[in-house]
């Protein structure tokens, strides 16, 4: 809106639209024109302020700062924007690192759980009070290992070796409801040694 708009508002026009003006119904460009006239014309100012004393403060809408006010205004904003962007980038990097750490930890946990589950012995006792134990063909314990075998073999290079084969239950099984201990996991140990070495 140009300042020239005040020129089209004389006292008659201001008086004609004063009610609408005071009710805030005059659109912004005309409103400014009327305001500038009212605050220059003692007669119109008196009429307006009698109806609404707070019209006194209406010219605050036309406040304009001297150019010196804006010195350094934009550079400070630009600096603030750069600072904000650096902070946002750092936050994004941190969030990415945190997300990666969470993914790696989760995968690790899942893998560990899977491996541990695989390494667990076959459960002897099931949930509840029923016990399902495959009856062992014979009862053995770690203290009483299975019979071992020794075999003498000649290799292709005419070298003689002895093959020791031992079988044993490496873990005692959980007690069954009947009170008898089941066999542990059967492990076969094979040792191949030079025939000259006696074990």
């Amino acid at each position, binding site marked *: 809106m140009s300042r020239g708009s005040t020129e089209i508002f004389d006292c008659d026009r201001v008086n004609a639209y004063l009610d609408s003006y005071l009710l*805030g119904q005059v659109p*912004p460009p005309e409103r400014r024109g009327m305001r500038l006239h009212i*605050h*220059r014309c*003692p007669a119109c100012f*008196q009429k307006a302020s009698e109806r609404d004393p707070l019209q006194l*403060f209406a010219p605050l809408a036309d406040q304009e700062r001297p150019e010196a006010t*804006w010195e350094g205004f934009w550079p400070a904003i*630009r600096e603030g*924007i750069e600072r904000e962007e650096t902070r946002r980038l750092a936050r994004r990097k941190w969030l990415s690192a945190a997300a990666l750490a969470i993914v790696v930890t989760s995968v690790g946990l899942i893998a560990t759980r899977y491996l541990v589950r695989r390494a667990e012995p076959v459960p002897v006792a099931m949930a509840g009070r029923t016990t399902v134990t495959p009856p062992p063909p014979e009862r053995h314990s770690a203290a009483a290992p299975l019979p071992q075998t020794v075999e003498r073999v000649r290799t292709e290079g005419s070298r003689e070796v002895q093959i020791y084969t031992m079988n044993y239950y490496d873990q005692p099984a959980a007690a069954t409801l009947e009170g008898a201990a089941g066999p542990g996991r059967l492990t076969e140990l094979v040792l191949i040694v030079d025939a000259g070495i006696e074990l």
Partner: protein
Amino acid sequence: MVDERELIRRARRGDHQAFELLVGLKRERAFRIAFNIAGNEDDAKDIAQTAFIKLWSSLRSFDENSRFDPWFFRIVVNLAIDSYRKAQRGPRLVAPPSDDEAGALPAAVLPGADAGLMRAELSRIFNRLAAELAPAQRAVFTLKEIEGVPTDEIAKILGIRTSTVRNHLMQARRILQEGLRRHYPEYLRGPSR
């Protein structure tokens, strides 16, 4: 003539130069609103600058089909209200006039005075009387009576109902008129002007 829509579009794409031009277009009003609510020039400058920094960060979320001014001035007004609230909790920088200060308005604010002087003096009087207002009342008065923002738009800017806006405006007007009556009775009597 710079096309505001085009500047906003370019600034949204990260164009600093377009954003600088947009700042140039909006800084005067942003400063004025901040000043009339916060009541302090230094605070008003900080508020306006912070508002523009926030604007840059959030410009991508602006819907180009909606009006820019209410969206942006919401940032300014909220920052200004926060600043005024903090200032109210601390020691008062602008004291309301004491009762024995009653008298006529300075000639500088009356018609015929130099426009620049008139606004500076009016601003001083407004700041002193408005120190009695609650933050929301002051924001509503500034937006409605000084900036000429429609009531429904003020409600959107402040995130309150239009009935609440009217209520705040009524209270603010009552307090300011009471202040004028108490401290500048000559002005309200009229004929002596």
